[in-house]
């Protein structure tokens, strides 16, 4: 017994000595608390490959590991990233990109124009499972990329295409690691190699993705050594983790804003996001095909109540599919707004041929009661609440609404069904706007029934405006085109635009070097972010 105790003591002593020794020597490998930034991922990433992934957890990781020819800065402007300089000819169809020369991949191999060509070839290859192909195919003709020399590449477009440079912010893949591989199944997708500020280190499913700084990053060595992105799908759990200091940033629900904004260890930032929430009507539905009916519903719903009831005031109501924080937002206010006016809504329904059934107090037309179903995806509490509020508002005027929450995959199956008409009456969804106002894929009649125009919107004038909008390059001219476009869309009410929510992000005070709050994120660029004690 005694001998065991003494040997334990000896062991303990030697442990203390070792500990002291390791502390005293200034070993650069010792990690201190200020070396690790803990970020939050709202779900498990799918593919860590910017060509394949479509989910936001993956793109959060990819944003740190990969870089594109351009990047978006905190002012929401495009700035050169891998590109040194570029030219475009007068017709706007011939681009020449000169690339930075001192860039290496995380494995040490130099980055060249061949990698750029390889990436876009992969996207254009029909065998690749990517949704990004249509970004580089215009009217059926693909953009052509030609390597001039190791550091120069040209792009030849079939027609001018205003959003082209933004599309070139797409992360570039290493040719030397992926050539000859089946990209859809490559091991690379779970252990990516990029040119970005952080190197991929490990991915523990359902736990975290760990990144290490790229000491040779061409835009300057990042200030923080390690980034651990913790996978916490549940928002409430993430909030607890933020409180305990296990993660350094998390989104805060509007209703909890006041509780978290006073926490001494947190900085809470608010900014408008580029996401709007809307109710989309199936325009092939016998009632909703009449724009008068859609306008009646717009007048029956008080968007202000939704903004205050669901968002607790952290948001603004939306009237058009454009964000007030982007340059393309129209200046003047001659856009139809559909003020809350339930009695006028009833008038409109009567004009559209509906009568009130004295028995049920519901509107009906040709003996069919005005009753429809709103579907939305399960798990989004805000949308569920919006659906119930809309249901109440429409009950007030005599329109019956049923609600169905659906599993995301079956929901997507319904709205993406390759048939017309599709099996739904109305949906509540969100749409994330890009920096460029080009919204061809949502509103152009060619994008139905296959494509994002799943409501089946068809307005020939809108089609023309959409085509002109993407082939015109002057900002001011485009702004005019899109203003006219938004007027048409607002007037037609294919969607009932509801609101733009504010993002509320809580960040631990130990995190410094943040950028101005905005849709481009608070840690943009990430290499400036550092931690203090």
């Amino acid at each position: 017994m005694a001998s065991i105790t003494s040997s334990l003591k000896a062991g303990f002593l030697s442990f203390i000595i070792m500990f002291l020794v390791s502390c005293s020597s200034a070993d650069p490998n010792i990690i201190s608390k200020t070396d690790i930034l803990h970020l939050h991922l709202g779900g498990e990433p799918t593919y860590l490959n910017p060509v394949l992934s479509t989910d936001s957890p993956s793109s959060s990781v990819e944003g740190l590991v990969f870089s594109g020819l351009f990047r978006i800065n905190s002012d929401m402007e495009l700035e050169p990233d891998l590109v040194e300089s570029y030219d475009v000819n007068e017709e706007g169809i011939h681009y020449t990109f000169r690339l930075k020369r001192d860039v290496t991949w995380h494995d040490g191999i130099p980055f060249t124009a061949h990698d750029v060509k390889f990436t876009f070839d992969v996207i254009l290859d029909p065998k690749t499972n990517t949704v990004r192909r249509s970004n580089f195919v215009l009217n059926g003709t693909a953009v052509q990329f030609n390597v001039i020399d190791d550091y120069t590449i040209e792009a030849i477009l079939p027609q001018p295409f205003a959003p082209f440079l933004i599309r070139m912010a797409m992360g570039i893949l290493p040719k030397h690691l992926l050539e000859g591989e089946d990209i859809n199944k490559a091991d690379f997708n779970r252990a990516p190699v990029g040119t970005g500020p952080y190197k991929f280190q490990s991915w523990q499913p359902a736990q975290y993705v760990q990144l290490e700084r790229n000491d040779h990053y061409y835009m300057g060595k990042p200030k923080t050594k390690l980034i651990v992105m913790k996978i916490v799908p549940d928002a409430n759990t993430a909030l607890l983790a933020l409180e305990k200091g296990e993660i350094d940033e998390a989104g805060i629900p509007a209703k909890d804003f006041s509780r978290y904004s006073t926490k001494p260890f947190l900085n809470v930032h608010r900014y408008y996001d580029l996401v709007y929430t809307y109710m989309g009507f199936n325009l092939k539905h016998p009632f909703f095909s009449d724009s008068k009916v859609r306008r009646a519903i717009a007048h029956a719903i008080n968007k202000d109540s939704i903004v205050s009831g669901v968002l607790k005031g952290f948001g603004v109501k939306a009237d058009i599919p454009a964000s007030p924080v982007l340059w393309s937002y129209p200046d003047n206010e001659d856009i139809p707004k559909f003020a809350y006016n339930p009695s006028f809504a009833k008038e409109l329904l009567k004009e559209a041929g509906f009568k009130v059934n004295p028995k049920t107090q519901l509107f009906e037309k040709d003996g069919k009661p005005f009753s429809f179903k709103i579907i939305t995806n399960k798990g989004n509490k805000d949308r569920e609440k919006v659906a119930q509020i809309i249901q109440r508002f429409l009950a007030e005027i005599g329109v019956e609404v049923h609600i169905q929450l659906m599993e995301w995959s079956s929901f997507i199956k319904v709205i993406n069904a390759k048939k017309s008409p599709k099996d739904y009456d109305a949906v509540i969804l969100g749409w994330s706007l890009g920096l460029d106002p080009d919204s061809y894929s949502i509103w152009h009649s060619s994008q139905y029934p296959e494509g994002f125009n799943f409501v089946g919107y068809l307005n020939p004038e809108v089609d023309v405006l959409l085509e002109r909008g993407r082939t015109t390059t002057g900002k001011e001219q485009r702004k005019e085109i899109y203003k006219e476009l938004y007027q048409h869309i607002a007037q037609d009410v294919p969607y009932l635009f509801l609101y733009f929510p504010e993002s509320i992000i809580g960040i631990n005070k130990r995190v410094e070097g943040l950028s101005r709050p905005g849709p481009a994120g608070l840690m943009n660029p990430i290499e400036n972010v550092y931690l203090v004690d």
Partner: protein
Amino acid sequence: MGILTLEKKALFSFLFLSGLALLAILFPIISSSDPNYFDPNLIGEPKSPSFAHLFGTDDLGRDILIRCIYGSRISLMVGFISVGISITIGTLVGVVSGYAGGVADEIIMRIVDMFMAIPTLFLILTIQVMMEPSITNVMVVIGLTSWMGVSRLVRAEVLSVKNRLFITAAKARGISLGPLLFKHILPHCLNPVIVAAMLGMGSAILVESVLSFLGLGVQPPHASWGNMLENSLSFLRQAPWMALIPGVLITLTVLALNFLGDGIRTYFDPRSKTSARH
């Protein structure tokens, strides 16, 4: 040990359940309050319990007491109907299998084994995801996947009853098969069925709560204890009563059903001291 307390527990459980059932049946008749009503222009914060709203209100301003009562209708309906289905099937299968014996019994029991291997909850989840979620589906699927235990119990009873003297006597009188099975054999097998029904109702109510909690049961705005609980999740700290009240109701109801089932079993059990009455 504990016969008296068990009886008391069973009595209280019975009173609680009858009260709940009466309220669920009568409330919509005597009151016109709409459990889904709220003023969309006046959505505030959840209000804590007060005289105006005994159980408080939820995040849309709806009265939790009224929603709980309407939720109890769903829970009790799911309990009764799904157990009704499972008892009917289970009894039929058990009687036939037990009485037939031999190869038929063997085959039927292997089929029962097969059904027992199906994980009920996952089957229901799959069906609810693939089809439009509806409470009818929930009841039917719970009923169709929970009869196996009952059929086993009934079969065991039939096996022991069918060789008793009065059955032989009935057969000797030339009674036909139907009346023999259902007039003479079945009444002697009902005690375990009643107990199984009580316990089955408890678990059916739990399954419904789980489904509604996962968003696959009762669809909003309609209330069920499960979806009220789910809705309360993000308000746990702000408005704990939103979670507490439906949670306590689920617990009490399932507990009461189990106590009642236990009480009935003890009462009928020939091995317990009260068997003299039997």
